[in-house]
């Protein structure tokens, strides 16, 4: 499978090989492409840029950057509470999703029978089900057991909705770990589960991080599931909070953008730090390879 090389690459493309460099033209072309990229990136990032600028611009006029808007929203609204809600839900989702997807991904990676291919197809089919179909029955089910308007209920739905992709991502990474490693452990008297835990999982930090980043983005950025399941503003997560805040303060762009900055900061920081581990290439491979 070609994925073994591609998954490692992820965002950080390997330096083009020698042969390519020879064929890639002179220095001038290099700076031309650089200028082109700067221009494209500048245009693409306009929405992000205006968000940051408006957040730091004083509402009272003037152009010196200020933290006024941030102080303002944190002291007069529920933004702090919403942040803490979002953090809780996201943390639970990331941990549970990795813990459940890792063993399932192991089965997908090592299993070679009809049951496993059926499972693989099942993952693919449920990935294509729209969230809206499952949300309505889940709402009714959760209402009966008191999980509506609760952060726990929301986390359960998030974990469920990360399952397909998280399992593929883990499986793709496990594919790159030779099976001979755990087979050696079995011969030494290690159980299958023990071998998975001690040998495979210990060598899978990049795969685990990749899956964790994915689950983080799903839980932190979700709007649809939250708007259905959360009703009272004290349990709002940030996306709902920002939306309600936006509707109440349509003219106070400084405050709205300050909340926006607070909300986009965690995903950007995490991605900037960990992007070399993040790869979606493996999804394709594990989707088609089984």
């Amino acid at each position, binding site marked *: 499978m070609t994925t073994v090389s591609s998954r490692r690459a992820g965002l950080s493309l390997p330096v083009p090989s020698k042969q390519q460099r020879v064929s890639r033209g002179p220095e001038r072309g290099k700076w031309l492409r650089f200028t082109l990229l700067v221009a494209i990136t500048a245009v693409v990032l306009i929405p992000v840029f205006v968000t940051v600028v408006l957040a730091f611009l004083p509402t009272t006029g003037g152009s010196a950057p200020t933290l006024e808007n941030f102080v303002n929203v944190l002291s007069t609204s529920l933004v702090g509470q919403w942040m803490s809600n979002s953090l809780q839900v996201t943390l639970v989702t990331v941990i549970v999703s990795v813990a459940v997807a890792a063993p399932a991904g192991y089965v997908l990676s090592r299993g070679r029978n009809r049951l496993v291919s059926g499972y693989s197809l099942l993952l693919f089919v*449920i990935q294509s089900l729209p969230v809206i179909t499952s949300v309505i029955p889940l709402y009714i089910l959760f209402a009966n057991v008191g999980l509506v308007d609760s952060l726990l209920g929301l986390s359960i739905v998030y974990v469920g909705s990360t399952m397909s992709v998280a399992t593929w991502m883990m499986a793709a990474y496990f594919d790159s770990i030779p099976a001979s490693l755990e087979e050696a452990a079995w011969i030494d008297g290690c159980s299958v589960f023990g071998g998975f835990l001690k040998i495979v999982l210990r060598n899978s930090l990049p795969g685990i991080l990749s899956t964790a980043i994915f689950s983080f983005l799903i839980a932190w950025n979700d*709007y649809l599931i939250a708007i259905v399941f959360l009703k009272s503003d004290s349990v709002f997560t940030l996306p709902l909070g920002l939306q309600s805040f936006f509707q109440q303060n349509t003219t106070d762009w400084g405050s709205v953008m300050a909340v926006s900055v607070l909300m986009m900061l965690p995903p950007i920081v995490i991605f900037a730090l960990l992007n070399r581990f993040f790869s979606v290439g493996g999804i394709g491979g594990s989707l088609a390879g089984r």
Partner: protein
Amino acid sequence: MLAVPSIILIALISIYPFVYAAGQSVRDGTLISAGSFVGLDNYAAILSSPDFWHAARFTVVFTVVGVFGSWAIGMGLALLLRTRVPASGLFKVLLMLPWIVPIVVSSTAWNWLVATPESPIPLLFKTLGWGQPLFLADPTLAAITVCLFKVWVSFPFMMLMTSSALASVDGSVYEAANMDGASRWQQFRDITLPLIARSTYISWILMTIFCVNDFPTIYLLTGGGPVQATTSLVVLAYQAVFQNFQVGQGVAIAFLMTLVLVIVSVVLYRQIRKSEIE
């Protein structure tokens, strides 16, 4: 055994609701009561409603533009970033931002940029003498804006998928092509594209699923308006259930959509697996 927790979760969060939804689609229930059996009335009502067909048409347009727009841009950028360029690592992270930033945040920023006649982009158009377009109030322009927004959000994903695929292409084939005097375009068309074909198909399938099922990109920017111009099937289903409380019809809309999507996905999935064996 190791897959048991995941299977239980899938059964609870995905399969049970799906079966339940199938049941709801033939009843006239609300969010609190199951309602009574009405046969295929919900389906008949939907299929004869112009709103449904309008939403179906918009969903197709939105999906086609979303998939191929983001693919073309993502592919272009992946090819550009593959060449030797200063600070390419930084560009890769910066260009991922539209996909990383929460839709709630980016839709707010887009709103600020285009929503009212006094917003920066309409003012810019006015300065350039192109009129003062109402991007979210004119039905056609709103549809175009939403599609553009979707492309903006999605191209980084395509860039990532294509980059991964390109990384696995052996550079020496290009050297041979160079010797044979193949042009850049010929190399791209006859070498690069076929070599990454499988990954391309997969990214199209995934993006189709993402687009058809998309809710926040549309709902947060336009709410489905003006006058239903940007209402996709998912938005229509959401409105039916949570604004008009017609659970049966809402679920039936989602269900019809799902059925088509699942059939398309499974057919394409088998196609990939077949091409794999060759």
